[in-house]
C-alpha cells in the first residue's frame, strides 16, 4: 500500500513538473498585411520582441512564453477562422490581437462562448460597450478621440465642422460617436460626407465640403489608405480650414503616403510618438521612452502607437498572469479586470467591471505633423 501511495505521489509530482515546464501560450491574430498593415505589422514585431525579452529574463512564473500569431490581413472572416484555430487547436491561454474593430467584433462571440481572456488592439468603443465579460482593449476608444479633438477645437474657437469618414467598422463607429458627443462640446456638424473602402479619389466629397459655408475645420474618421488620400486631395483643393485625423493614422506610414500634404494635420495620439519631447516629470516618459528605444534599436524603424497598443496588451496580460499565479482563464480574466494604475504607452490603465478600456483622456495628447514628424500641438 505504501509503495503505491509513494508511486502515485511520484507520478503526480512528475506530472506537475512537466506541467510547470509547459509554455504559456499567447495567441494572436493581427492585420500584418493588407489595408491595415501599418497597424498589424508593428503590433506583430512588438509582440515578438517582448516575448523574446521576457523569455530571456526567465519567462513568467518560471514558464516560457510562446507566441502563436496569425496574419488576418484585415479580413473579419480570416480573423474568425484564426481565432477558432487558436482556441480549439493551438489551445492558447489568452489572446492579444485584433488590429481592427471589424476583425475584433467578428471574433467576440467566439471569445465569449469559449471563455478565454481577449485583449483587443482595436479602437471602436463598441468593443467594450456594452461590457463583455472576456473582452478588454488597450487603445483609446473612438469616443475618447472625438472628445479629445473637440476639446482642442473648442479651445481654438472652432464651432462649426465638417465630417468625412470611410466605410469601415472603426470609421462608422467613430463618426457615430462624434455626432453623439458633438453637442455636449459645443460643436456643430454642418457637413457629413463618406467614401467607400477602396476609393482612390475623394475630391468630389471634399469639394462639397469646401462649398459648404462656415466650415472652420474638417475631421476625417478613418485609418489606413483612405485618410492618406483624403489628406492629399485636401491639399490639392487648397482647403484652408485645419484637417483633423483620428488616432487611426498614428504611424509614419500615413505621413509617407500623404507626403507634404500631411503638414499641419492634427490628431490625438499617445505620448509615445513624442517621447523625447516630454518633460522628465511626465509620468509616462519612462515607459514610452523605454519602448521606443527597444523597438527602434531592434527594427530600425519608427515606433507607431499601434505597436504601443500591442506592448500594453502583452504587459497587462503578463501582469495578470503573475497576479493569477497561473493560466486559469477565469482567474486571469479577473486579474486583468482588477488592474489599477498600470502605466502603459497609452497612459495609466485602470480596468474595472464596468470599464474595459481602462484609459482616461489624460494620456491622449494632441499632436501636429510638422516637417514630416510628430510634434505636440501648440
Amino acid at each position, binding site marked *: 500500500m505504501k509503495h503505491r501511495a509513494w508511486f502515485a505521489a511520484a507520478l503526480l509530482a512528475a506530472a506537475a513538473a512537466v506541467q510547470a515546464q509547459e509554455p504559456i501560450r499567447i495567441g494572436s491574430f493581427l492585420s500584418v*498585411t*493588407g*489595408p491595415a*498593415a*501599418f497597424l498589424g505589422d508593428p503590433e506583430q514585431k512588438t509582440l515578438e520582441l517582448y516575448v523574446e525579452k521576457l523569455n530571456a529574463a526567465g519567462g513568467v512564473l518560471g514558464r516560457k512564453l510562446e507566441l502563436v500569431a496569425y496574419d488576418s*490581413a484585415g479580413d473579419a472572416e480570416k480573423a474568425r477562422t484564426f481565432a477558432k484555430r487558436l482556441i480549439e487547436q493551438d489551445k492558447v491561454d489568452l489572446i492579444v490581437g485584433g488590429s481592427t474593430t471589424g476583425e475584433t467584433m467578428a471574433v467576440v462571440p467566439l471569445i465569449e462562448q469559449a471563455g478565454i481572456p481577449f485583449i483587443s488592439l482595436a479602437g471602436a468603443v463598441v468593443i467594450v460597450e456594452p461590457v463583455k465579460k472576456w473582452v478588454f482593449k488597450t487603445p483609446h476608444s473612438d469616443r475618447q478621440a472625438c472628445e479629445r479633438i473637440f476639446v482642442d477645437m473648442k479651445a481654438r474657437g472652432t464651432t462649426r465642422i465638417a465630417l468625412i469618414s470611410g*466605410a469601415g467598422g472603426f470609421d462608422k463607429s467613430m463618426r457615430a460617436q462624434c455626432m453623439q458627443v458633438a453637442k455636449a462640446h459645443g460643436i456643430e456638424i454642418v457637413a457629413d*460626407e*463618406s*467614401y*467607400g473602402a*477602396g*476609393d*482612390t*479619389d*475623394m*475630391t*468630389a*466629397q471634399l*469639394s*462639397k465640403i*469646401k*462649398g459648404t459655408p462656415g466650415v472652420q475645420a474638417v475631421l476625417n474618421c478613418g485609418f*489606413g*489608405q483612405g485618410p*492618406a*488620400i483624403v489628406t*492629399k486631395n485636401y*491639399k*490639392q*483643393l*487648397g482647403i484652408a480650414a485645419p484637417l483633423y485625423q483620428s488616432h487611426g493614422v498614428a504611424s509614419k*506610414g500615413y505621413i*509617407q*503616403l500623404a*507626403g*507634404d*500634404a500631411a503638414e499641419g494635420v492634427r490628431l490625438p495620439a499617445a505620448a509615445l510618438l513624442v517621447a523625447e519631447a516630454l518633460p522628465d516629470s511626465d509620468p509616462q516618459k519612462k515607459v514610452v521612452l523605454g519602448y521606443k528605444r527597444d523597438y527602434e534599436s531592434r527594427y530600425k524603424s519608427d515606433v507607431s502607437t499601434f505597436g504601443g497598443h500591442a506592448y500594453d496588451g502583452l504587459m497587462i496580460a503578463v501582469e495578470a498572469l503573475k497576479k493569477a499565479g497561473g493560466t486559469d482563464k477565469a482567474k486571469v480574466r479577473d486579474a486583468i479586470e482588477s488592474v489599477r494604475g498600470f502605466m502603459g504607452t497609452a497612459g495609466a490603465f485602470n480596468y474595472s467591471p464596468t470599464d474595459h478600456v481602462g484609459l482616461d483622456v489624460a494620456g491622449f495628447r494632441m499632436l501636429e505633423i510638422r516637417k514630416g514628424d510628430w510634434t505636440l500641438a501648440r
Partner: protein
Amino acid sequence: MSAQFLQFLLTGLTVGAIYALVALGFAIIYNASHVLNFAQGEFVMIGGMAAAGFVEAGLPLPLAALLAVGGAMLVGLALEKLAIEPARGASVVTLIIITIGASILLRGLASLLWDKKIHSLPAFSGEAPLKLGGATLLPQTLWVLGATLVTVALLWWFFNRTLTGKAILAVSHNRLAAQLMGISVRRVLLVSFGLSAALGALAGVLIAPISFTSWDVGVMLGLKGFAAAILGGMGSGPGAIIGGLALGLIESLGAGYLSSAYKDVFAFVIILAALIFLPDGLAGRRRATERV
C-alpha cells in the same frame, strides 16, 4: 456651383482616361481573338507596383516607368504564349475563364514578389496644385490626360498606317480571310496581348502618384475598364475611349451630386444597363455575325 462642377469634371476626366486605357486593352485583345481578357486589370497593377518597386530600389522615375511597362509587356506575351495559345482550339468561354485564372495567379505572384502594402509613386512633375477657373488640378492629371491623348494618337497611326496594325484589324474583321491572305493569327494574338499589357501598365504608372497602388488594385480597375469597354461598344477603339471618359464622368458627377458612398455602384449599373438596352454600346459596330 460652376467651380465645383469644373472640379468634378476634371476628376472625372482623369479617372476616365485611366478607364479608357484599360478599355482599349480589352478592345484590342477582343478584336484579335474574341476573348475578354480579365487579367487586363492586373497589367495595370503590375505597371504601378513594378514602377514603385524600382523607384524604391533607387532607380530614377523615368527608367522605372519604362522598365515597368516593358516588364508588363513581357508578362502579357508570356500569358498569351503559355495560357492562351495552347488552348487556342477551345471555346471563347474557356479562354475567358483561363484569363480569370491568370489574373488570380498574377495577383498572388505580385503579393509574393512585392508585398501587400500600399505603395505610391512620386508625381512626375511635383504636387503643387494648379488653379483653373476656381477648381484645382494636380500636374499629374495633365500627365494622365496628355499621355492618353498621345497614346491614342500613336495607336491610330499604328492601326491605320503600319502593316502589323492593319493585320490586327484584318483579323478582327474576318479571321479566316486574314489567314487566307497570309496573316499569321498567332503573331497577331501575341502582338495584341503585348500591346494591351503595355497600355494597362502605362495606365498603372500614370495613376499611381494620384491614387496609390497595391497588389489588388487590378480587380476594381479591370472591372471598371470592362464596364467602360461595354459602354462604348466592345471591340471598338473610339468606343473604348468614349466609354472610359463617360464612365469616369458619370462616377465623378454621381459622387458629387448624388451619393458619394455609392460611387462604385455607377459602374456596375452601367454594365447592366448597357447589356440590356445598348448591347452594342455607344459606338458599337454592327457585326456581320453576332454570336456569344
